[in-house]
């Protein structure tokens, strides 16, 4: 049904954006929930709105869907301004947080709902429903009611229900929240592959960074109604634009330092390049630090605690200056982990990957 669409990889750079959000603002009373949010989403791209609860990500999603009006700015789909287009005429499909399947309708009638509301001929409607159910591998479940399905199946019905109407933009509002942790991982990969196969332009809302890193082509990190950084997952992780983004995504170590003459001195004796001067904050990821047993190096401390996280061992090291630094090391069968209480020194692996932020 949607195979005709051009693949995402070939078109991202050249085509005009499918969805353009321009300086959107939204107030609840005097409280600013969205402030000057701008974002462009290309054909077939999956962009995640990531942030803690209350950062405005769902508000932005609801504004795109048309559930409420933005107080300022523009939302365009394929170059057409959406402000005057009512909810039921927008080319937008929403997969809701708890799916919002109609409990009184069978799977088949849930999926066919959009087509019935558009008054499509019965035969065409049936064919498209069957195709959508096949896309999400739910053929054979036509006559079940939502309550008779597992969480994962319900989510797939919710997907099929929006797929039949061939939306230009797919909006996913924390669609994995209702699933248990193990299923969540599998469904994330599955859903991303499905969306990519169909070439659907999507906005995905979540507060879970791992989900965002798995699902997205680009991530927009939001904070208090503003978009802090929009970048591909790797860049967000390796080069977070602000201390907030660094803190929100992944584990990070922060400490204060002074920048002079375009460089900042790192506690292990190396130095990192920066354009800032004066008091700064330094950030290093735990995997960019290496633990050395003994107190040979200049940045010394004691292991306070360690734990194994799958293939990694994470050490919490109490430093001489009172700070606690987290270090991640690959777990290797030949090495025993460093014991708690052991004196260690920490060395930075790649100073260029240390981020420098204004204080």
């Amino acid at each position, binding site marked *: 049904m949607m195979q005709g669409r051009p693949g995402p990889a070939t078109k991202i750079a050249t085509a005009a954006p499918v969805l353009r959000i321009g300086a959107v603002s939204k107030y609840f009373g005097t409280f600013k929930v969205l402030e000057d949010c701008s974002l462009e989403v290309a054909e077939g791209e999956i962009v995640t709105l990531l942030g803690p609860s209350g950062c405005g990500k769902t508000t932005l999603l609801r504004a795109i869907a048309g559930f409420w009006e933005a107080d300022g700015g523009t939302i365009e789909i394929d170059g057409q301004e959406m402000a005057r287009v009512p909810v*039921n005429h927008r080319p937008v499909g*929403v997969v809701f947080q708890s799916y*919002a399947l109609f409990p009184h309708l069978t799977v088949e009638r849930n999926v066919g*709902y959009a087509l019935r509301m558009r008054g499509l001929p019965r035969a065409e409607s049936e064919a498209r429903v069957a195709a959508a159910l096949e896309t999400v591998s739910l053929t054979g479940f036509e006559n*079940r*009611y939502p309550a*008779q399905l597992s969480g994962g199946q319900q989510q797939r019905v919710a997907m099929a229900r929006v797929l039949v109407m061939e939306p230009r933009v797919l909006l996913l509002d924390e669609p994995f929240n209702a699933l248990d942790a193990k299923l969540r991982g599998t469904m994330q990969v599955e859903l991303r592959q499905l969306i990519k196969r169909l070439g659907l332009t999507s906005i995905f809302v979540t507060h879970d960074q791992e989900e965002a890193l798995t699902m997205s082509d680009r991530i927009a990190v939001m904070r208090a109604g503003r978009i802090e950084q929009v970048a591909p997952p790797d860049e967000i992780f390796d080069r977070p634009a602000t201390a907030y983004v660094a803190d929100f995504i992944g584990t990070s170590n922060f400490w204060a330092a002074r920048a002079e003459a375009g460089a900042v001195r790192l506690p292990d004796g190396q130095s990192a390049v920066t354009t800032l001067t004066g008091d700064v904050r330094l950030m290093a990821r735990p995997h960019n630090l290496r633990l050395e047993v003994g107190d040979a190096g200049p940045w010394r401390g004691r292991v306070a605690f360690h734990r194994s996280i799958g293939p990694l061992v994470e050490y919490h090291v109490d430093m001489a200056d009172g700070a606690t630094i987290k270090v991640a090391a690959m777990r290797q069968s030949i090495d025993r982990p460093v014991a708690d209480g052991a004196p260690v020194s920490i060395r930075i692996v790649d100073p260029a990957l240390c981020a420098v932020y204004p204080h």
Partner: protein
Amino acid sequence: MSYAAILRPIARPGLGERLIDALLSGRGIWPAVPAIIVLTVVAVIPFVILLSLGFSDIVVSRGEIASQTFSLDHLRNALTDPLYWTTFQRSLTLALSTTALCLVFGYPVAYLFLVGGRWTKRLILVLTIAPLLTSGIVRTYAWLVILGGRGVVNSTLMGLGMIDQPIRIMNTHWAVLIGMVQIHLPVMILPLIAVMSRHDSRLVEASENLGASRLGTLRTVILPLSVPGIGTGAALVFTLSYTTFVVPQLLGGGNYLNAATMIYEQVVYSLEWSKGSVSSLILMVTCLIVLVAIALATNHFTRWTRGRDA
């Protein structure tokens, strides 16, 4: 505190505590026993006595029951008496039209509650519940003021020059119907609101997102999901208005006869307890028939709930 102190064996509970624990465990019907005793004494036993009066020939001599023999005469008399038929028919028509009108007026209010903002919801709740805080008799008397010959309705219409003399509303079928609808409206609205707000509010958004108009959403999502509320509301309003006594007595004038006022006259004025007993039985049985019909209809329209646990 040492662990030894925490791990000290717990003292055996006393008899009273064990008894209360057993009661609260929910096994058996013991927690309901007080209510059962009260209901048996004040409702079941009197009702059985009343029924026995309707199915027996009683000979009274010197203020005492001399003999009591089983008889179906009273029931036969009642079923062949045209007065009974017209009275019960009137009661049934009145109750069914009250139920229908309550649904027609109540459903939009419940819909408004569902789609409205916070203040709309609060206003509707207050306006729905407030009348329930005053007694039905007081509310019925208020209608005397409104519908009477010199009441609000007539004086307004005359003031506007639309009529030259008061129209007779009081003591007619219409006055009774108006009063009944107003008195029973909250009983329809509250179950509707309860059922409607039980469902995820995102269902309405999902429906609109999938291209449904507001009317389409009402027809295909809100209405089917509110059927249990319609059933409950209809059953309550029907039962209350079919057996009501106050409203027809006050607004219908002394001569408006429905089932309840007829029973009242039979028992209080003509002291024919056997007749009253049979009338009560007919009232109860016909009421149950309608309630079963409502329940069956509700079940038919909520077949989807049956698959729930499968």
